[in-house]
């Protein structure tokens, strides 16, 4: 394991200290927790947004805290959902009297820990709503099972719901627009290499030198298929072949695209992938309103990438374009 760290068991706390040291004008840490909140929290009279999950997905989620996005991000241990007391501290710190929306990625642990925190907060009289993001089309959808995972599309939920709250929306408004994003965003990824949880010290799985995993989750959860490595154009095609049918796009429709790196894949490759994704969308006469290329939701140093497509209407487009000062949004 080659990492720029000190103690493998203290990476989360030290990372948070480094985040606050980098953005002391915008962010603060709730003492004794791993929660990052807006410096000016609680913002009175604004619906507050909280998200989070295991660490190792940086810049998610701390990088999305700021005016126009999240009010708080709760960091669990690497790839481990945060505990309810931490989430509860976050909720308390940001509630400005108009209620709090929890944006949760669909993992059993995340959902349960956030729900317990909500129970605790509601017992204190704080109004809490929640949405669960499940954009990963690699996993079959079924109400009987755990359902689809939440991956990079979550960042669009943060951005758009955050903008709605910033505009003065009620908790119901913010929740509704968050649900609308979730219904309209689909994602899928591939991985080329594993990553190593610092405290574990060894890679989470093994994969051949000429292999890739299609549909892998952001914690290294298995995907649909392991195959020989494919070209960028083939990867773009197979991801879009899974994503597009789920969105039911028609010619003239408007979308936002996110080409997300998992940590170890350089920007050069993400752009090469985007070239084909843009070509596929152009071929269907779908208009790309905005493209985001970079690292938005990572898996430590895993090599790989995901593509997210968000179908936009005018409301979503306007909220997506709204200003935010969250450090990791661009």
């Amino acid at each position, binding site marked *: 394991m080659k990492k720029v760290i000190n103690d493998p068991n203290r990476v989360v706390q030290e990372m948070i200290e480094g985040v606050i040291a980098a953005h002391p004008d915008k962010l603060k840490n709730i003492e004794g927790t791993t929660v990052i909140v807006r410096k000016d929290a609680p913002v009175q009279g604004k619906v507050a947004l909280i998200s989070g999950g295991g660490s190792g997905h940086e810049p998610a989620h701390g990088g999305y805290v700021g005016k126009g996005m999240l009010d708080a991000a709760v960091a669990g241990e690497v*790839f481990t*959902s945060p*505990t*309810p007391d931490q989430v509860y501290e976050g909720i308390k710190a940001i509630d400005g009297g108009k209620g709090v929306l929890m944006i949760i990625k669909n993992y*059993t642990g995340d959902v*349960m*820990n956030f729900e*317990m925190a909500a129970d605790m907060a509601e017992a204190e009289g704080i109004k809490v709503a929640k949405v669960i993001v499940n954009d990963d089309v690699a996993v079959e959808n079924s109400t009987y099972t755990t359902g689809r995972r939440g991956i990079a599309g979550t960042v669009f939920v943060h951005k758009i719901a955050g903008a709605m709250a910033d505009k003065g929306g009620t908790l119901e408004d913010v929740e509704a627009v968050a649900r609308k994003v979730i219904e309209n965003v689909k994602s899928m990824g591939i991985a080329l290499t594993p990553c190593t949880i610092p405290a574990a010290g060894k890679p989470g799985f093994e994969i051949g030198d000429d292999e890739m995993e299609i549909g892998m*989750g952001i914690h290294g959860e298995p995907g649909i298929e392991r195959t020989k490595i494919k070209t960028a154009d083939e990867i773009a095609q197979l991801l879009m072949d899974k994503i597009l049918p789920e969105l039911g796009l028609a010619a003239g429709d408007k979308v936002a695209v996110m080409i997300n790196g998992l940590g170890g894949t350089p920007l050069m490759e993400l752009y090469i992938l985007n070239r084909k994704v843009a070509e596929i969308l152009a071929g269907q006469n779908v208009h790309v309103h905005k493209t985001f290329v970079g690292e938005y939701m990572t898996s430590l140093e895993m090599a790989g990438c995901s593509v997210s497509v968000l179908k936009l209407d005018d409301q979503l487009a306007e909220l997506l374009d709204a200003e935010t000062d969250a450090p990791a949004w661009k």
Partner: protein
Amino acid sequence: MQKDVIKNWLFTVNERIQEKKDFLSELDRAIGDGDHGVNMSRGFAEAVQKIRDNEPADIAGLMQTVAMTLIAKVGGASGPLYGTAFLKAAAYLKGKADVTVRELGEAFKESLIGIKQRGKAELGQKTMVDVWEPVVEKWLSYDGAVDFDELRALAEASLEKTKDLEATKGRAAYLGKRSIGHLDPGAYSSYLLFDTLFNELKGVKA
């Protein structure tokens, strides 16, 4: 039964979990993310420490301490599930100085309901529910004396059955059919809980 029975049980559970820490993680590595042993060991070590440092006054207090510690220290899926289980049991037993075996069974019935609500899981989805549900139901089915050996055997048999199931809840569900052939790690830790409990209760009069 008095507080000491439950206290001894919790201490023994902790020992068994520390012993089986790597084994539990190994089970989780096969069909989950490999941290179940680490999670449980972190949670129970801390719970026992808390009890040692500041011993609660009654059984409900012991359960409550375990609940709060697991909730705050474990994270993941098993933290809220076990946390809820102990929280529900504590609520049921609140104010009771002496607890009968039947009452303990009723308390764990509350736990089972809590786990199922929290996890939205049913029997047969390859989770800890597959141990909790048959064991608790059987326990409450005894009219008179409870056959603890029978319950121990049932806990073990229920655990074994998870091997042939396809997971549809929890992280193992992403593996679909590939989850078949492996024991469920949470079912294993639940089996440990019951196995030690029934062993403890054998020496106690109802």
